[in-house]
């Protein structure tokens, strides 16, 4: 007679956890072995992964396919510049406010866009983002059409030494990415994650089982908005300038992110990492060819959607049933300590 228990980790995930920790340690040590350019690239990769994880949570798990998350990137960025520039606020405090501010703004937005479903929801979120961009371009204190530059004191506030500053910014990127990932990971592992997966698989069925689908989606939407805002603040802190076009750019913050998630494997935690790597490789390879790489990205996205809609990691899961970040639950059979005599 055997009993069953619920297991979370798989052997692959345990092995991978070891490697992940090692990679993370190497990345944390980068300020001591890498140069400024490399750190900037890895920092960029980090925040793209964070944005991709958030979009994946929204679209791949909660079923909210938003084409307007760039709104929160811009909102976070602008709030940071506004607080530090106009209110002379401490940069860390401003960053800490930028995220929740974006989350707060997402509440009235949700009143409008949650009226729409499916693809109409997607375009609706896009309209909202355009509205924010237009407001930013019209408000004088936000620099109107030409935007704002980061006040010179801010960088010195982080550190007068450039090397230290780069290190701080880099580690902040890494920390925020790890934080965002941890939040997403533990959320999906939890009871709420199970609810999300149920909603994703069948909204009516999960509603009939007592899952409050509206509230769950609402909370996810606000949470991802807040996290996206925080990342937006960090991104533009490093760019030193923000404008309506850059802050709310659909190409930079949504098209690229969607590409990463879709190609890597939507609805998986591993997918965004893979998608980000592919994007970065493609971008670096095709850097000299201008807009061709965007067209290629579009073509690849189309191909993946038609031939392998589950993306690269989705294909791996189908083939090998591999899960590196254990969020599932398995039944494992274990023999009892004593067996009854037959």
């Amino acid at each position, binding site marked *: 007679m055997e009993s069953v228990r619920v297991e979370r980790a798989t052997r692959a995930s345990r092995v991978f956890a070891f490697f992940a920790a090692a990679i993370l340690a190497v990345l944390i040590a980068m300020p001591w072995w890498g140069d400024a350019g490399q750190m900037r690239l890895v920092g960029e990769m980090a925040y793209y992964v964070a944005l991709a994880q958030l979009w994946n949570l929204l*679209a791949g798990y909660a*079923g909210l*396919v938003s*084409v307007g998350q760039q709104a929160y990137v811009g909102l976070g960025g602008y709030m940071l510049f506004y607080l530090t520039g106009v209110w002379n606020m401490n940069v860390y405090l401003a960053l800490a406010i930028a995220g929740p501010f974006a989350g707060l703004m997402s509440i009235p937005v949700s*009143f*409008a*866009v949650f*009226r*729409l*479903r*499916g*693809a*109409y929801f*997607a*375009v*609706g979120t*896009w*309209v*909202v983002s*355009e*509205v924010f961009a*237009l*407001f930013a*371009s*019209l408000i004088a204190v936000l620099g109107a059409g030409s935007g704002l530059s980061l006040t010179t004191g801010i960088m010195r506030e982080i550190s007068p030494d450039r090397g230290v500053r780069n290190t701080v910014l880099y580690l902040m990127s890494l920390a925020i990415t790890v934080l965002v990932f941890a939040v997403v990971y533990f959320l999906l592992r939890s009871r709420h994650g199970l609810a999300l997966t149920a909603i994703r698989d069948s909204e009516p069925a999960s509603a009939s089982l007592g899952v409050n689908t509206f509230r769950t989606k609402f909370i996810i939407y606000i949470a991802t908005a807040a996290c996206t805002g925080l990342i937006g603040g960090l991104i533009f802190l490093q760019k030193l300038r923000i404008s309506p076009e850059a802050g709310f750019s*659909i190409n930079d913050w949504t*098209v690229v992110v*969607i590409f990463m998630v*879709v190609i890597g494997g*939507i609805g998986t935690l591993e997918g965004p990492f893979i998608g980000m790597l592919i994007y970065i490789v493609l971008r670096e390879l095709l850097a000299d060819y*201008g*807009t*061709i790489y*965007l*067209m290629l*990205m*579009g*073509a690849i*996205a*189309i191909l993946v*959607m*038609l031939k392998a*809609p589950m993306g690269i990691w989705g294909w791996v899961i189908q083939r090998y049933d591999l899960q590196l970040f254990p969020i599932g639950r398995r039944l494992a059979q274990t023999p009892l300590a004593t067996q009854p005599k037959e």
Partner: protein
Amino acid sequence: MNWINILIQGGLLGGFYALFAIGLSMSFGIMRLVNIAHGDLIVLAAYVALVVTQATGLDPFLSLLIVVPVMFLLGYALQRGLLNQTLSGGLLPPLLVTFGISIIIQNGLLQGFGAYDHRLQVGAIETASLHLPGSLSIGVYPLVVFAVATLAIGCLQLLFYRTRLGRAFRAVSDDADTAELMGIDNLKLYALALGIAMIFTALAGVLFGIRTIFAPLSGPIRLILAFEAVIIGGLGSMWGTLIGGVVLGLAQAIGAALDPTWQILAGHLAFLAILIVRPSGLFPKTRD
């Protein structure tokens, strides 16, 4: 400030927006597909007209004789070759595939024509106006376009309600599964639907390209305007879309009158307001 003129101007702008919206509305009504590349296809039509007018010396109105069939065939091929394969996978494939097409068109146009503004020229009619008593002045061109939009929707309604093909469209829109069981070739019908939608898209692209400059990245705003017109008017109703366009145009005109930089924003805000207050639009017709 002559408010009557402003409102008339705004209302007539609705004719353009309605033309933008027809293709989108058809796509969603018949195939349940929101074509993210719709705006870019409108811009593509304008570029095709540009090429045709430059190559043949035809004026933009006459160029329609070539642009319309070209866009029809493009729509047919696009649906038949690509979009039909996305229909059974749920929400994401059509959205992302059309998104990909949008990126490709935008960047293809950038490669081919550069990041410059273009405009189709037709001469005097662009700026001609009718002067009516009471210091009313109505632009001739917007009036003509509004008439064209009304005619277009009228023709489409005739197609849907008085022809065999239209009946098939409505049946497929109701219940694609049963329609196939009645002998209708759904996939061919969808291709035809996008082809027909592209006729109106071509009209929209060329007629608007005469009025306003266009550039490779002008697609998204056109998609958004089309989308707003459809939602304001209510899903499933063509005449509703015309009225939606008019409401949008009016909102923009009022915004522009207060401050020219507020034009597009005013339209967006009107859209969001209607979305919050009356989400199914002014004249909704579809069941989902």
